[in-house]
């Protein structure tokens, strides 16, 4: 790669101690996306994402470009609330088998708590874990 490169196993502060760079690598988000799933769906911004699949009301799939090492990575999802600021939530959609995520994709959904039904909205998601 024709770019500057710093190789280091440890970062050391003059007074506050040192940190193994593995903590930095392992602790960085590997993928994130900001999706508007209202109207005609669109990815507003992202990193390490190839596409969003709009699977129907309030649920979709995030497809990853640089795959994770396996399907046991961590996914965090948040969403916009309704106008009152409450009553909406979201999560990783696993279906009845609980095995929807793969190293290259994960499915997320958003719903109205009191109505127990899916609803379109905005998705903010990111992943942590090991890359392939």
């Amino acid at each position, binding site marked *: 790669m024709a770019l500057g490169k710093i190789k280091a196993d440890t970062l050391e502060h003059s007074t506050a101690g040192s940190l193994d760079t593995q903590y930095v690598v392992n602790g960085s988000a590997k993928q994130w996306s900001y999706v508007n799933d209202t109207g005609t769906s669109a990815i507003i*911004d992202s990193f390490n994402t*190839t596409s969003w*699949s709009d699977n129907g009301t309030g649920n979709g799939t995030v497809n990853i470009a*640089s795959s994770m*090492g396996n399907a046991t990575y961590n996914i965090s999802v948040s969403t916009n609330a309704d106008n009152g600021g409450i009553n909406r939530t979201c999560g990783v959609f696993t279906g009845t088998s609980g095995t929807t995520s793969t190293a290259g994709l994960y499915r997320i959904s958003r719903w109205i708590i009191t109505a127990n039904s899916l609803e379109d909205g905005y998705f903010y998601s990111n992943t942590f874990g090991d890359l392939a």
Partner: protein
Amino acid sequence: MTVTPEFQGTHLWDRLCWAKENLEGHQSDYRVVYEDSLDECAKILVPDPNWMACALQGGILPPVEVYHELAKDEASEGFTKHTRGYLLHETKPIDAMTEEQAIEYLIMKDCPQSVWRDYDSGNKPKMVICRKEQLPATREWRNAWKISEELTVTDLAA
């Protein structure tokens, strides 16, 4: 024009970091409508703007076949972790694509093979590439959306 560094051998994630820093995202107007289950509504694939910028730039993305190899590994019995991730990073990156070629790549990466392998051989198409303005303007009855039965393969070729 931004010149892509020689990326073969560089981790794909690092290449994407470079792209995020150096390339302007490209919002595609193309959408892929597909059906992969009789029991579910039509799904709509939306290209990522930063990924599309990589595709148009060239020299960043691996050939799509690499993803198929990794999918085979993951589907194999006893899979615990990818051991051939190097395929993503060490295979020669592909050249710049047109937006249409990038959509074809995306279909082969992110749609199930059962959809695109023989998309035009059934009673009706299982997949349609369209522009976003051709989709319904509102999401009313979204869970009932299906590809029109009246749409023929001949229409698709026209």
